[in-house]
């Protein structure tokens, strides 16, 4: 069979590299201060000096999307790091050992995962108050169950394979079996799960910040920018357009990359 080019993977990689690069740039450099207000530049149209125009307070939208994207990226990455690390440990133990503890833990995970993360996120933030770190904590905890379930399924698949049995017979410690014998085999599936998790994290953060219950008032994030721009949507559509584009590209890139990874696996 002729090997078809994996467009998802290629395009996804390019888009992800671009949007992540863009967001990462915002961590170090913005052409203007994202909070500097210039009265004369209020509602300035996109131009050479301000490629994305200026907002209702005369702030440079390009600088703000750079900073907003970097905030959104940091939050999403922190969320999947928390969710993935905890999910990996829980899922690996549950999948490898099984038993009653596994059943109980998985029931709890199912119960949590049944609720939309935006709703649970709102509930947690209603209790803790808004803020960047509260968003990370809330979403991070909420993302544990789905990762745990994914990891558990993979570890369950490998726990009775011959190479694992052989390792057990040779007296390899369980910890070593889990993380240096089984884990490397599961990476491809986990990677595509990570891209989905990343997407959901970006979506959830954007939605929550859009609702005004995400990052704090001082922070810039893509969702918050869009929320602020909503009132000026009819008069200055570019205020919504550019943060929206960055958000969509960030999600689209990771989504296609995940799809590409899965396609690549399917061919093997």
């Amino acid at each position, binding site marked *: 069979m002729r090997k078809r080019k994996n467009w998802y993977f290629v395009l996804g990689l390019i888009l992800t590299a671009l949007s992540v690069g863009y967001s990462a740039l915002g961590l170090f450099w913005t052409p203007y201060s994202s909070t500097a207000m210039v009265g004369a530049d209020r509602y300035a149209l996109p131009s050479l000096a301000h490629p994305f125009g200026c907002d209702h307070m005369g702030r440079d939208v390009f600088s703000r999307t750079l900073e907003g994207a970097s905030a959104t990226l940091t939050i999403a990455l922190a969320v999947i790091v928390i969710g993935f690390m905890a999910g990996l440990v829980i899922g690996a133990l549950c999948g490898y050992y099984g038993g009653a503890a596994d059943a109980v833990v998985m029931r709890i995970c199912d*119960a949590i995962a*049944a*609720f*939309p993360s*935006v*709703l649970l996120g*709102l*509930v947690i*933030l*209603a*209790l803790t108050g808004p803020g960047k770190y509260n968003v990370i904590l809330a979403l991070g905890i909420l993302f544990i169950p789905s990762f745990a379930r994914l990891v558990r399924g993979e570890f369950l698949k490998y726990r009775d394979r011959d190479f694992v049995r052989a390792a057990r017979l040779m007296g390899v410690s369980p910890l070593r079996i889990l993380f240096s014998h089984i884990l490397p085999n599961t990476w491809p599936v986990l990677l595509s799960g990570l891209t989905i998790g990343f*997407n959901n994290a970006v*979506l959830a953060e*954007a*939605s929550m910040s*859009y*609702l*005004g*219950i995400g990052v704090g008032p001082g922070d810039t994030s893509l*969702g918050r920018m*869009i929320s602020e721009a*909503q009132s000026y*949507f*009819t008069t200055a*559509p570019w205020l*919504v357009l550019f943060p*929206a584009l960055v*958000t*969509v590209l960030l*999600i*689209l890139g990771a*989504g*296609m990359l995940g*799809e590409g990874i899965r396609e690549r696996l399917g061919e093997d």
Partner: protein
Amino acid sequence: MTKTILKRLGLLVVTLLLVTFLAFVAFSILPGDPTNSILGLNATQEQVDALRAQLGLDLPLWQRYLNWLGGLFTGNLGISYNYDMPVGQLLAGRVGVTAALAGLSFVLIVVISIPLGILCARYEGGVLDRALTVLNQITMSIPNFLLGFLLTFLFSLVLRWFTVGSFSAATAQGFWDWLSYLFFPALAIALPKSAMTVKMLRGSILGEMREDYIRTAYSKGNSKGAVLWRFALRNAMIPVITFLAMTIADVVAGSIVVEQVFAVQGIGQMLVTSIGNRDYPVVQAIVAFIALIVVVCNFAADGLYRVMDPRLRQR
């Protein structure tokens, strides 16, 4: 069979109790006394005590929970701190709006995705299939509030088919008025979910088409269309229907966000406002209400799975 149903019903009741208990306790153990925000800081101790007794705050937590749980059925859910109005009354008019929005979204998802999913699988690799694969990927990447913006821009500002913010449950003239305004918000919720459903249904049908019984059906002289409709589709629909039932929870969550974009006065908008105002009796009631919907939908999905797949019935 009866035993299984009873067991699952028991599990449902336990889950419901647990979920409502968590929703209640989470907002009841918060520091700060609601009487402060109602009476202000200059209230006398007698006033505070009287109000605490009136709100039932002097009772132990479990008793407050039981009272509140009873209130879920009678509509007596306490008084909103912010609106100074019974929560039940406050939500009564809004529940219908959100229910209509969620219901309409769900209908749209089914109407859009099932035919498209079948067409994509039937003509795999064709123009429609390839176009939709690309479109799906893009639609799934647009958060639903942005989709809401796009729809408002196109249909409200450019085509002037409807005016944003013109909707209120009180002024709506009958059923069609509701429906015509709620159509676009519903579309904003439905499109990303439809994209997922199309993708899933397509994959599910194509998976079934590789099975042995399909080869048997072909060998008996059935055409491709007949095999798809009469053999593959019935099996392929099983996971999709479960997925759709689970989607209801996401649709309700989506309406929290989209109500904000289109200024629809439903419980989602109320939830967001009340979180901002720290109006916990309202938040408690809405969270419990949405949680009930989620739990019941999952229960229904599981039941549907058993009804549709005879292989699962014996277990």
